[in-house]
């Protein structure tokens, strides 16, 4: 008869002792399940909500770092020099981050409003709203000069929103918000060569009979007086772009959209045109250079207008003023880790932002709940260990005789310890198994009540997110790709469930309690002398 059989017999043939121990483990089990269930529900709610959020990390200029640095400068010239060479996000640094296999793509976007050539050969997709009805061919921008005399400049109304990126894919396309229906996205080579290529929407293509491979002419925006002031011909503002792709999108604007009547043509995603940032820069280069030349003539002493600062393809990166690059990762759960991994190797004055401040703020009640629940689990476990250890140690005294007999017939001390462990493990498993049923029911009810109380006492002030135009939160100008979440998003994911993992955890903890509880009694057994025990008995 081995020690396992003996243990089973001891448990089954001493029912009152076993029932008391089962009851003890049952109570411990209930408390542990409640704690684990609530803690797990809090963590799961956070994870599920986090998974719904876009996996984006912003690599940007850290203005706090900039400010701290400037604050400690005392020399005026030094401060001026710093501002002249104000920190920018370097594409070379972004390239290093892009080598991380968790990064799917990056957006370093620059946006412009353009229009068709002077003959308006390219029509825009119409919404037929109030703005379009009132919109003439030209707009006016007015201001008051130093003599309080109103000055006005006329400009041609732009129709198209140009979105350029420095990388050969965009978050919008990777995420499926925009889909290529024909052709392709631009390549790194086209970006590097500043090839005049673009992607247009399927509605714009259909309206103008554009197919992939066609060339469309676009003109950069300008004020009418610029032509004379900067000595630039209208034709110089126009560029031909080969359409390499046609896309569809998930942001259609319908007449029931909020502020529908105030949406400008260039704010309609159908009138959005994607192209490499370099191509966008190239198209504006002639204007940029002539503007620069004009001001260089006006202010010849200004170092800002020195020859080396004249816009060119070589100093494009400086002139694009990139302050924020958004990286799209493969998994929202990798975001924090990614930031952690790269934070220390970033260039000066830059930082990585996991865009989770709001999330963390909203998740605070769940965090607090999780902390309390974990605290309860640990408290119960420690108490359980102490109680079971004491019970076992006290029981040992009454079983000295049995131990003496076992040792006298040649049973090893390890087998005796093993028997004690198995006996406790059996009652622990029975107690915990029973507690799974009752514990789950209590955990569900109690968990929800505690969360309600926690939220009520947390005094969370949710930020009133300002949605630019549309009910679905689409903002054509935004470079913020993070996902807005609310407390309701988090709470809706909160559900106390006793998963197989928790059940497994309960059993592991139960056996852990038994194991630790047997350690001290084991030392006592190891010190037992069978002669003393048996001679005392006899």
């Amino acid at each position: 008869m081995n020690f396992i059989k003996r243990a089973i017999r001891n448990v089954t043939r001493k029912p009152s002792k076993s029932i008391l121990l089962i009851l003890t483990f049952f109570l411990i089990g209930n408390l542990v399940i409640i704690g684990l269930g609530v803690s797990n529900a809090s963590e799961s709610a956070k994870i599920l909500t986090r998974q719904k959020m876009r996996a984006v990390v912003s690599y940007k200029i850290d203005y706090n770092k900039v400010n701290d640095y400037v604050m400690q400068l005392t020399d005026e010239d030094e401060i001026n020099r710093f501002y002249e060479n104000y920190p920018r996000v370097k594409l070379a640094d972004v390239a290093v981050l892009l080598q991380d296999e968790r990064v799917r793509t990056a957006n370093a976007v620059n946006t412009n409003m353009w229009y068709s050539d002077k003959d308006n050969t390219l029509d825009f997709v119409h919404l037929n709203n109030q703005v379009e009805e009132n919109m003439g061919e030209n707009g006016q921008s007015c201001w008051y000069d130093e003599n309080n005399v109103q000055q006005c400049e006329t400009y041609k109304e732009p129709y198209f929103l140009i979105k350029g990126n420095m990388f050969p894919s965009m978050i919008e396309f990777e995420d499926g918000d925009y889909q290529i229906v024909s052709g392709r996205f631009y390549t790194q080579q086209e970006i590097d060569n500043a090839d005049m290529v673009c992607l247009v929407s399927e509605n714009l293509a259909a309206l103008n009979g554009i197919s992939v491979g066609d060339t469309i002419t676009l003109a950069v925006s300008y004020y009418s007086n610029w032509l004379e002031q900067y000595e630039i011909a209208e034709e110089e503002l126009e560029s031909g772009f080969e359409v390499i792709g046609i896309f569809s999108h998930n942001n259609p604007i319908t007449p029931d959209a909020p502020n529908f009547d105030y949406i400008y043509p260039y704010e309609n995603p159908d009138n959005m045109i994607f192209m490499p940032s370099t191509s966008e820069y190239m198209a504006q280069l002639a204007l940029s250079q002539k503007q620069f030349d004009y001001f260089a003539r006006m202010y010849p002493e200004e170092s800002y207008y020195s020859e080396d600062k004249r816009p060119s393809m070589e100093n494009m990166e400086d002139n694009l003023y990139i302050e924020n690059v958004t990286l799209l990762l493969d998994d929202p759960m990798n975001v924090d880790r990614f930031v952690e991994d790269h934070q220390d190797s970033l260039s000066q004055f830059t930082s990585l932002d996991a865009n989770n401040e709001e999330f963390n703020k909203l998740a605070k009640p769940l965090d607090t709940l999780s902390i309390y629940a974990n605290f309860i689990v640990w408290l119960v476990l420690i108490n359980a260990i102490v109680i079971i250890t004491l019970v076992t140690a006290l029981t040992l005294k009454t079983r000295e005789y049995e131990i003496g007999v076992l040792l006298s017939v040649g049973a090893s001390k390890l087998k005796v310890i093993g028997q004690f462990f198995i006996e406790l493990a059996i009652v622990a498993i029975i107690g915990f198994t029973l507690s799974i049923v009752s514990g789950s029911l209590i955990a569900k009810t109690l968990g929800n009540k505690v969360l309600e109380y926690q939220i009520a006492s947390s005094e969370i002030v949710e930020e009133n997110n300002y949605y630019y135009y549309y009910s679905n939160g689409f903002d054509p100008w935004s470079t913020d790709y993070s996902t807005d979440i609310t407390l309701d998003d988090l709470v809706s994911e909160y559900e106390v469930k006793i998963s197989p993992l928790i059940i497994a955890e309960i059993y592991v903890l139960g056996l852990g309690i038994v194991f630790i509880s047997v350690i001290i009694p084991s030392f006592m057994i190891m010190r037992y002398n069978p002669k003393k025990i048996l001679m005392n008995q006899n």
Partner: protein
Amino acid sequence: MSAILELENLNYSYIDGGYERQILQDLSYSFEEKQFYTILGPSGSGKTTLLSLVAGLDTPKSGRILFEGKDIKEIGLHKYRRNDISIVFQQFNLISYLTALENVLLAMSETDNELPKDRKNVAYNLLERFGIVASKADRLVNQLSGGEQQRVAIARSLASNVNLIFADEPTGNLDTATEKEIINIFKDLAHEYGKTIIVVTHSDSVSSMSDQRVLLRDGKLTKL
């Protein structure tokens, strides 16, 4: 007949009230196989201490105990207890939550000695041989009488198939009739089954039935 157990210059003492109390002094003796021995002696003479030493439950301060010519320290006390000897106690020392049969099987499960495969039947037969029928064998031991429990203890001592059995006042808690029965069993074990039985007792009636009577006095054993 050859010696199964030899004691060589055994010394044993302990501190009692600040004074060293010598229990065994240069004790030497040889126990032959297949004999039924009784060790007699006045109270406090060290009979139980001697039994605990030869049973491997304690160790002498000096001297050697040889089992079949081998020092039991070399065999290992734990292994010696498991495979070479068994002990019958005055209080029977059975495990209360096990049946009579399971108590016998316990000894079988712990020994390394070769045993028949059908242990359960062997255990039943062993118990039956000592008057414990199958219906009683399946009872918890605390449901048996004192005499029956001692029979179970003897059956257990034989279960591990050892040749040397020690007994410490095995009839101390039994009535005269049962005492006689138990002693007859010991005699049978020695003479029919070739076991060596060493019984520590203060009972003259028990010692009168043994093959050899040995007196423990002043820390030494003397053959009577």
